[in-house]
């Protein structure tokens, strides 16, 4: 059992380090972090009215996370596999005695780390609300954690599609569309339409698969096991697709 796991996960460390290095060897990670933080700031302050709510919490900050992840994380993940196919290095990678799960998770975790760094760099917001009042810091930490898990789910879509299309631009566009579908499914505007056409039962089902719905509890500072399992399960599901799509190349 352990031997099997070791073989399947072979190359995780090497792939993780190589991909993380690739993000920071090029301006990629820096540009991503700068633009991501800028966008998050603009939305929180300008569109969300951070100072106008009169409460010392990060609600106007977290509410934008799903929407910004939907655009930014596919941009981070699009190169993971498409880049290999473009440069022909996938041939090199497939000739190494590695396991596909190790490759898939190594790449995913590298992108996940960059996203995590972006999330960590929003700490001035946290400091600000503590300066302004006495927020529930446990609740905020919890929301950060679930937001980080949600980022992994978005990235897993992007990574899988990158392996499927082999082109960065196509991967980005398709990933954003899929991510939009899974985000907007919990939007009242979409839900009311679904309810009108298919009935309440189906609308509830659709809402269960929405990142908005799953993130809602966490935004209130409630840790729901259901949401944690949803994001982890979602990530696992897309990672399996990712592995299958990447292995497809062996068939020619």
């Amino acid at each position, binding site marked *: 059992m352990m031997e099997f796991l070791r073989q399947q996960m*072979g190359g995780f460390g*090497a792939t993780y380090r190589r991909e993380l290095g690739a993000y920071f060897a090029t301006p990629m990670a820096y540009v991503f972090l700068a633009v991501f933080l800028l966008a998050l700031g603009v939305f929180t302050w300008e569109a969300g009215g951070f100072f106008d709510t009169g409460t010392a919490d990060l609600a106007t900050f977290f509410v934008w996370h799903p929407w910004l992840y939907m655009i930014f994380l596919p941009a981070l993940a699009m190169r993971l596999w498409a880049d290999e196919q473009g*440069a*022909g*290095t996938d041939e*090199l990678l*497939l*000739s190494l005695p590695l396991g596909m799960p190790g490759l898939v998770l190594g790449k995913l975790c590298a992108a996940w780390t960059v996203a995590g760094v972006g999330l960590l760099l929003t700490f001035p917001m946290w400091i600000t609300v503590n300066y302004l009042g006495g927020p529930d810091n446990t609740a905020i930490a919890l929301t950060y954690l679930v937001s980080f898990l949600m980022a992994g789910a978005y990235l897993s879509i992007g990574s899988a599609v990158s392996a499927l299309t082999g082109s960065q631009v196509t991967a980005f566009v398709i990933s954003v569309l899929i991510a939009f579908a899974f985000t907007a499914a919990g939007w009242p505007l979409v839900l009311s339409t679904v309810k009108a056409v298919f009935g309440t039962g189906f609308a509830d089902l659709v809402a269960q698969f929405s990142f908005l719905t799953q993130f809602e509890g966490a935004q209130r500072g409630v840790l729901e096991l259901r949401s944690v399992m949803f994001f982890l399960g979602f990530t696992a599901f897309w990672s399996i697709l990712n592995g299958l799509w990447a292995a497809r190349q*062996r068939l*020619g």
Partner: protein
Amino acid sequence: MLDIRSLEKSFGAKRAVQGVSFTLEKGTVLGFLGPNGAGKSTTMRMIAGVLEPDAGDALIDGKSIVSHRRQAQAALGYLPEGAPLYEDMTPPEFLNFMAAARKIDRTKRKDAVERAIADARITTVAGQRIGSLSKGYRRRVGLAGAILHDPPVLLLDEPTDGLDPNQKRAVRALIARMAPTKAILISTHTLTEVPALCTRAIVIDRGRVVADGTPADLAKKSDDGSLEGAFMRLTDQAEANAR
């Protein structure tokens, strides 16, 4: 060392490789010759475990690439066509990645990387990113990656293609130095380097082996006694037979 058993591969309706078999012993440098599109690269990619064969098998150091892919791949050094590399890395970074991926022990990793850098003669460019290197140096970095774990079998797909004469000589010298202790399969369509480099040659055309022997044997099959004449005759003949 290397035992190829009736490998087959089709892409849609095109039968790229149709039952290629041969064996290769330690100390042999086998030239894998054939026109473009004959199935050289497809065969090599199947042996490397990059492409799954439709039928047949390749045993590398006794391990099947079909049923024990990882063990077989561990005994193999592969330089893909065009030597694709991670351009954002420096050669030592790339070799360290390869060493980690090949699970070379941490304590031996530094020595292995240094040895490969010295063997491939890339010390002078060790500080540069691979993306900024010339074709010849890239090829040698790829070679360094292939020999890093000192594999008993080497698979080099057109290692000298597109290099200038000096670079070609450097790559040939490297192969010659490694030849006695390894089984080496080299695909090429530069016939002039075959007699100098290879102890045996196989000609493949339309996915089939059409000739197998020493370069001198092959040359005898032509009217003028040249390898080029033999090559043209063999591949023409296959074309005639196919009609």
